[in-house]
């Protein structure tokens, strides 16, 4: 089994002195490739911080984080940009689509700069929204916007997809549709999915569940079987 990420003693401190906040206090984790990993934990336990460091949006204060053979801590800003461009996709709680681009164009925004993208139409098809490609975000519902955001994230065929509370702003039915898409991506493209959520039941669709506690990894559970989003109690 290949590992996507390995971290050793990963530490993140915001601020200094009295005002210092220790968001991560030495995280050691191995993330295998091709799995869906769900991260749970109390608010403020450092989930987003970890995700952002692994995704190349932020830097650790101390410790190492490896993506395959690359030490993320040693990359320059430029190299981090290239890393994000080539290897990872992001989905956030608030879709973050470009309001001035249509659904199709939002996807093309990424395919234009990616090395080995899938056609924009195929990405939209994957999330079941190819027929809405000419609609602007203001003409789409929240769930639809989130699915476009996923299409945009997967269109470059990333090795890893980071999702920070992707269903946080959605009702359960819409949330299920979004989760279905993520599962689909994982199954069909073999993309590693790292998802942060507050809905503990979503953990049932993961291969592995990581619990964070106060800036550290609390426990890691491996699920023998994965439920489909439809089977999840919400």
């Amino acid at each position, binding site marked *: 089994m290949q590992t996507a990420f390995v971290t050793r003693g990963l530490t993140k401190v915001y601020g200094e002195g009295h005002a210092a906040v220790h968001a991560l206090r030495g995280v050691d984790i191995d993330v295998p490739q091709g799995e869906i990993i769900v991260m749970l934990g109390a608010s403020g336990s450092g989930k*987003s911080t970890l995700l*952002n460091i692994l*995704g190349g*949006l*932020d830097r650790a204060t101390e410790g190492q984080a490896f993506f395959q053979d690359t030490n993320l801590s040693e990359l320059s*800003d*430029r190299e981090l*940009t*290239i*890393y*994000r*461009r*080539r290897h990872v996709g*992001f989905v*956030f709680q*608030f879709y*973050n*689509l*470009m*309001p*001035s*681009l*249509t659904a199709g*164009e*939002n996807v*093309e*925004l*990424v395919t*234009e*700069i*990616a090395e080995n993208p899938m056609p924009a139409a195929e990405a939209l098809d994957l999330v079941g929204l190819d027929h809405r490609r*000419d*609609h*602007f*975000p*203001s*003409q789409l519902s929240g769930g639809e*916007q989130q699915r476009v955001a996923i299409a*945009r994230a997967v269109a470059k065929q990333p090795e890893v997809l980071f999702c920070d509370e992707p269903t946080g702003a959605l009702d359960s039915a819409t949330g299920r549709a979004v989760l279905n898409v993520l599962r689909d991506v994982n199954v069909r493209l073999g993309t590693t999915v790292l998802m942060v959520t507050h809905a503990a039941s979503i953990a049932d669709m993961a291969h592995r569940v990581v619990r964070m506690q106060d800036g550290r990894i609390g426990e890691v559970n491996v699920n023998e079987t994965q439920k489909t989003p439809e089977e999840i109690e919400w």
Partner: protein
Amino acid sequence: MVSPLDTKLFRDLRRMKAQAGAIAMVIAMGVLLQVMMSGSTNSLTETRRAYYERNHLADIFVTLTRAPESELQRLGAIPGVRQVEGRVIGGIRIDLPQETVPIQGQAISLAETDRPGLNQVHLTNGTLPAIGSDDEALLLEGFARARGLNPGDRLQITANGVRKTLRVTGLAQSPELLFVAAPGELAPDAARFGVVWMRQDALSAIYGMQGAFNDAVFAQTRDANTSEIIDAIDSILDRWGGTGAFAREDLISDRFVMEEINSLIIMSRSVPPLFLAVAAFLLYIVISRMVQSEREEIGLLKAFGYTSFEVSAHYMKAVLIIAVAGVIAGCLLGVAAGRWMVGVYTQFYNFPFLVFRPDTFSFIFSAFAALTAASTGGLFVLRRVFALTPAEAMRPPTPPDFSKTLTFKSAVARMLDQPSRMVLRGIARRPLRTAALSMGIAGGMALSAGMTTIYASFEDNIDLFFSVVDRSDATVIFTHPVGDSAATDIARVPGIFAVEPAREVAAVFRNGLRSHRGGITGLPHSPEITRAIDASVRPIPLPDSGIVLSVPLANKLALAPGETLTVDVREGRRPTLQLPVVAVAESLLGAPAYMSLPALNRALKEPGRMTVAHVMFDSAEKDTIVSTLKAKPAVAGFLVAEDAQASLEKLMNEGAGAARYIMGVIAFVITFGVIYNAARISHAERLRDLASLRVMGFTRPEAAFVLLGELALITLVAIPVGSAAGYLISLALAAGFSSDLYQITATYDLASHGFAASFVVGASIVSGWLVKRDLDRADLVIALKTRE
């Protein structure tokens, strides 16, 4: 206790201090210019008035050939004349040891009394010549300064063919000599025209004027009719060779001061309002952005029970604080700039004192205008505050709607990448705002390009004048009309390769009630050296009869070719001529009228006469040529073209020319104010989009393109618009500034427009860079957390 809303206000202002500062700066510029210009106008007007009054400048002036002193009684008896004084004035040549070209000058008599009269000099240094002295003289202070002369020094002059050594007793300024130019020239040059004052008996002896006078000055009673007095003077002095009395406003020195005041007034009425309009617009977009991003807070405040008025007042206070800051800064800077400008004027015009007197009204007026403009900008925004209901404000934000903007057909689409589409749709979604931003910048650029063009056009005029109209290397001026053999005589001087005779005759032109005091220039039929030119810069041949008028003269007299002009010649036999206007000539400096020399001489019944000779020579031999000519009989002086051109150019570079940099600053400040605010707002509106782009793997420059591309487009659109408007402004200004002293023909001057455009682009780059710097510093993670 400070209300929490006020605390918020101050935090907000501190947060957007750079933006608020940029707007305050635009307001300050408008106020500054207003205060500076009206302050200068005020100071200049007031100083002129006070100086004239204190030194009893005459109301009416007249020059004549010679009249016995007994005529002064008759002149004094003219109804409305309060006081009259006869003087002796004569041309002199000043020979300075180091100078080969003799300097022309004038000697003016001082009455043999200590009783103060009209046109009193202002003694700056030393003492007056002793009464009865015959070799003591006062020297014009400007000339003395330019030549390093002091009281006690000796001065060699030639007056009426007599060489004389004068002892300088003091330096003086005079209200009739605020502006001093060498004869025949229009640019002031303190160094090339000297004035001495001597006691009347001494001067009379030199000029053979014992018991007589050749110049008279008059003071009139308060309610007298000036033109009636002038007519009465002219009829008395006609037989004494009077050249026509004229009122103070025709005094050349006063004309120039009035020109300056006039152009200041034109500028102060046209420039500041533009700044205030731009500032109002900037406040509008900035405050509306503030209201937009604070919808929730506004809703919340309303939900708590704050009235719409209270909430609006909160935002209005921000507007007013910015405006007041701008007004205060503008007033302070305006006073400082005004002082500086008045300093320049004191040097330029020989005012003995020039107090900077800020125009109180301009403070009140500009403060009022700035606050009104700012409040207008603010009020437009406040409508939205009123319209916002608490419930609406609390609703979660939906993405801004772009569905009604541009959709791209596949052909176009293929050419545009997604970031470019974002740029274009961003512009298309708010076409009005984009247009207004562009217009704001275009306004600044237009103002700058228009004004700079005026200076450039003036310089072009100077070049054209010396390369096409007057191609002489020097003009030899004779003391009186001489026979035209003088031209042949001059032509024999080695190094001189062309000579052309010409004749200058003083005359008054009349057409009905319109009149102009000037002169006729007689030139050969098809002159080669000094010529009249038409609109397409072709020389106009001078016909055997009739007169060619320059454009300003034709305009002033309302005459067109084919019509007849009445000319009262003020010299020689003083005939009155009826002359057909045969053509209109372009003129660049002054308001000349041309006739063919034989025709002019025939009309005067003085065939074969000339008063000046235009010469072209080998410049390597200038010094020997000048000293040879100097020794010729009846030569009064020289006018070296090089010097004349240099003093005109100096005028442009030192005085008015410095203003072009101010114009550059204007374009810069407006563009900076507009672009920087626009950039900040786009930045705030798009922070999350830009962060998302970075998350997706767009590099910093790629992400910045989305933001800066829009600004670049706005700037690019503004430049041609600003250039076109600038051209119109330059046409209007040229019309406003042109008079019969100077004519300015505004052309599209590429360099001026390029100059303004480069300031616009520079300002755009600076503001883009400031915003890009913030963009680069922005923390991705934090940016993603912000909810628009």
